[in-house]
């Protein structure tokens, strides 16, 4: 679906509130300030997905949107490999950068993703009065395009275009660069837009 300027603004505001809560939790976990970007919204044709996400490797902690909706799309905590190591080093009190990712890193990332995405969805649920619960997380450290295209292939409807809502969260002190990406299924998106539009109507 195409979003109007007003709808885009509303979705950006929603992303803003969700990401701000996620940023707060990240900031508490690393004990440092976390900056967030203005949430970006992109409608991407699946044929062009490779222009936005390549074969570079990154860690992704993925949650399916559940709750009042089933198979509502996905929320993804995305972090580059280098940032992932810096993040877990910070949390685990390590300093060695040139090391392979191990199980400790993976469970730490899973936990960080869990906390951040829960905060993101709690905040958006409160605003919308509509509960989107995260599924248990799944994690992969692999080519970004491979992971994202697999998620799109598994979305409920046979989709040719996806809307990606992403907010960049960075921590300058520890050089951590990450993103929270929401990729709602079409019906979920339509429902969120409807709720947002109802909120903006004069009483």
């Amino acid at each position, binding site marked *: 679906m195409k979003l109007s300027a007003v709808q885009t603004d509303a979705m950006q505001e929603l992303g803003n509130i969700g990401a701000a809560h996620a940023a707060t939790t990240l900031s508490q976990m690393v004990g440092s300030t976390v900056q967030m970007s203005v949430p970006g919204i992109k409608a991407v044709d*699946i*044929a062009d997905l*490779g222009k936005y996400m390549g*074969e570079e490797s990154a860690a992704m902690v*993925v949650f399916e949107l559940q709750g009042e909706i089933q198979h509502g799309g996905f929320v993804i905590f995305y972090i580059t490999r280098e940032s992932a190591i810096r993040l877990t080093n910070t949390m685990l009190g390590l300093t060695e950068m040139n090391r392979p990712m191990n199980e400790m890193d993976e469970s730490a990332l899973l936990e960080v993703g869990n906390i951040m995405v829960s905060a993101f969805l709690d905040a958006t649920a409160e605003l919308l009065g509509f509960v989107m619960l995260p599924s248990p997380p*799944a994690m992969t450290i*692999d*080519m970004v395009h491979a*992971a994202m295209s697999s998620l799109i*292939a598994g979305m409920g409807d046979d989709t040719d275009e996806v809307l990606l809502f992403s907010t960049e969260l960075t921590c300058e002190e520890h050089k951590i660069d990450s993103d929270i990406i929401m990729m709602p299924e079409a019906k979920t998106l339509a429902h969120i837009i409807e709720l947002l539009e109802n909120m903006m109507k004069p009483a």
Partner: protein
Amino acid sequence: MHDLPTPEGQTAMIGIGEYRVGSYPMMTIGLGSCIGLTLYDDTVKVGAMVHIMLPDSAGRTDRPGKYADTAIDLLLKELTKLGCKNRSLVAKMAGGASMFEYFGANLNIGERNAVSVRKWLKENNIKLAAEDVGGKVGRSVTFTPSNRGKITVRRADGTNCEL
């Protein structure tokens, strides 16, 4: 958008649901559950590559390259126009991984894609000469028809192989 000629020496990047036919180098990056399928005819020295996402078109015709059944039909039509015969075509494929085991709706799409490709190739009497499918790993594939249909697969875990 699908059949633009590619300038000499450049590699054509093939996105999800897209395909190319010719003798220039072609590439699909970041295959997860998707499949990169190539057909090559050594007598005519041309080939085709397609980036398949789902096993079955269920009657949809607007993006033939996206589904295993319609993609194979489409490639055969295009290759026949260039003088290729089914019996001299050789198929190879890579991808069909299962990146996330947990999600219900995601179950086995990669595997179902591979099964469907094999079925439609068989139906058309095309020989499947090699495959690198399954597992949990992302793959990028380069295809060079001019180099006797050479296929190189680069896996996300750092290993490479030739098909």
